């Protein structure tokens, strides 16, 4: 049973997605079905992570006599599609399944009055399938296929409220951006397949030569994944998509964005680290993109008055921290002394920020969804005095805002502290940008807090009440995680983050399919 976990984690939400339309006439039933499926998938991901942390890399070969039969007798190359799950993949799988569960729970009330809910939940589960496939696969073409699944289902979710023109426009934009990125990924995969005759990531990584065609493939893969994770100046689709998707779809869409960030890290560390004479070149590109992303993202956020759009620009800005942290590690990857001194910690800081950001940004987008749910507007100019009416949403917002601003003792502080220190060791200017970004982030959330929650109570919101319980529970879960991850960062780092960082650094393990061949 345990050896089939990598297949089950995809099969369960896939079954859930295709069965969801059967509940067409039972809106509550389809919501409960989605919560159940995402809950089971979350448990499977926890089991899978435990297996990976205990046994090391897990390989699952589809269609083989045994799931671990990488090279059938007589073959010197892998011929079947396989999943290769290391600590980094498992870490991303937990993020994906947790956020899909929380998103489904929140959606129970948030989209209850919408029509076509069976389609909504079907797409939500398909998005989860796409993300999980992307982070678990060990096959480049498979990565493209799952990227397409996530892109198409994500675009349909963004345009779910099709009666709003803006939602349809945002959905189409996301679809086109996803299609262009996927096309470039497919082209790069074709270049590599033409050269090496194989699609297995570990096989290509082991055999890859230093050639111009390889580097063109690397450049295209790098840029495509950077665009899909919202790096500046290719971030324009993010505010549209994050603003228009129903708030329950925000957490999985956020993880879908970071599945592309995962792919960027995987390609840079695992696939190309051997061939580039000076990998620090790629590291510096990542660092510069990171600095641009966090600074331009936050300054754009500061001037927004649409609460979800403001938070979307913050999502862009926070991606910059991740690129900065992991980029610092990539820059010194081939310098053992610097890698031990601060490179490993920088990668860990960047990855820790991924999960921290997924948690608090999902929480903040949900509080924005709660504001929209009760006021019917996202315009901060039309809000005010809601703290008295929505105390739990207010406290959840305060925790999320403190966490994203890097205030201790919440989770954002722990990861930002590591990023500040390690980026300082590479170049102090980087830390200045990171800290200024944090200050502007706090300023921006003070603006949201003051205009939406504080101030005199407005007459038009006299009869407003706190949002329904499922929405509150989803927000409370994430707020609690912000506090727990902030109070016990060492446990999270030791159990989840450092193994994931080591998986990126010790790429030879991945190249040998966890020692199986």
């Amino acid at each position: 049973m345990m050896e089939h976990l990598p297949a089950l984690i995809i099969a369960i939400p896939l079954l859930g997605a295709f069965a969801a339309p059967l509940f067409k006439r039972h809106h509550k039933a389809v919501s409960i079905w989605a919560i159940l499926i995402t809950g089971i998938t979350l448990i499977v991901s926890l089991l899978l992570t435990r297996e990976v942390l205990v046994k090391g890399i897990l390989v699952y070969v589809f269609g083989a006599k045994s799931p671990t039969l990488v090279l059938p007798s007589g073959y010197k190359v892998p011929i079947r599609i396989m999943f290769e799950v290391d600590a980094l993949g498992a870490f991303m799988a937990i993020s994906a399944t947790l956020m899909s569960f929380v998103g489904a729970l929140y959606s129970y009330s948030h989209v209850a009055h919408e029509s076509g809910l069976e389609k909504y939940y079907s797409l939500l589960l398909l998005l989860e399938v796409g993300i999980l496939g992307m982070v678990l696969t060990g096959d480049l073409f498979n990565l493209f296929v799952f990227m397409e699944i996530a892109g198409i289902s994500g675009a349909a979710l963004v345009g779910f409220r099709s009666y709003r023109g803006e939602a349809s426009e945002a959905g189409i934009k996301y679809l086109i951006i996803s299609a262009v990125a996927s096309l470039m990924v497919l082209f790069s995969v074709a270049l590599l397949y033409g050269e090496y005759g194989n699609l297995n990531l570990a096989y290509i990584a082991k055999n890859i030569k230093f050639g111009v065609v390889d580097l063109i493939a690397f450049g295209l893969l790098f840029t495509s994944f950077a665009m899909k994770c919202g790096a500046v100046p290719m971030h324009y689709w993010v505010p549209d998509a994050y603003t228009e998707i129903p708030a329950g779809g925000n957490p999985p869409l956020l993880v879908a964005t970071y599945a592309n960030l995962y792919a960027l890290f995987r390609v840079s560390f695992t696939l190309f680290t051997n061939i580039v004479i000076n990998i620090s070149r790629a590291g510096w590109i990542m660092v510069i993109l990171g600095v641009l992303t966090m600074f331009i993202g936050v300054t754009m956020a500061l001037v927004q008055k649409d609460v979800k759009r403001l938070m979307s620009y913050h999502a862009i800005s926070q991606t910059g921290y991740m690129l900065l942290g992991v980029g610092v590690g990539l820059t010194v990857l081939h310098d053992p002394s610097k890698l031990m001194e601060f490179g490993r910690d920088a990668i860990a800081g960047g990855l820790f920020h991924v999960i921290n950001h997924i948690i608090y940004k999902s929480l903040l987008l949900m509080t924005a969804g709660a504001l929209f749910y009760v006021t019917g507007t996202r315009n901060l100019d039309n809000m005010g005095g809601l703290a008295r009416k929505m105390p739990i949403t207010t406290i959840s917002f305060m925790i999320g805002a403190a966490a994203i601003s890097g205030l201790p003792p919440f989770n954002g502080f722990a990861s930002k502290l590591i990023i500040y220190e390690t980026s300082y060791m590479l170049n102090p200017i980087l830390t200045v940008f990171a800290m200024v970004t944090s200050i502007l982030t706090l300023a921006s959330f003070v603006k949201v807090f003051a205009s939406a929650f504080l101030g005199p109570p407005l007459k038009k919101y006299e009869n407003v009440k706190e949002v329904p319980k499922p929405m509150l529970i989803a927000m409370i879960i994430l707020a609690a995680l912000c506090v727990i991850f902030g109070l016990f960062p060492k446990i999270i780092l030791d159990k989840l983050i450092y193994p994931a960082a080591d998986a990126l650094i010790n790429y030879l393990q991945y190249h040998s399919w966890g020692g199986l061949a």
Partner: protein
Amino acid sequence: MNPMTLRTPSGYWNPIIWVIFLILFGLVAYLIYKAGNPKYRRDTDQVKPFLSGNLETDKEKIQVRASDIYWGFIEALKEYYGVLERMHTGDIRDYILWFVGMAAIITVILIGGI
């Protein structure tokens, strides 16, 4: 205590001091709130602001709106925001152009052209 201590390359961080500080701060704030002003009477004229004898303006009219916050900051950085505004056209063709441009730059750097 150990599970709470985060070791970083240059030192360590332990949130326990902050937690103690927050609890103490909350306690002091609560005590001050609880002590209150014994002469305070809710819903009487004494809670109304004194505006030199003028009537109080409708609260919705004097509310500080989100657009007004950081006006000075945005005004001071008008040129910077002008550039950003021109970049954010909302046109999907421009999105793709940025992508193509970045792909070209990144690929050239990786190949070693720069």
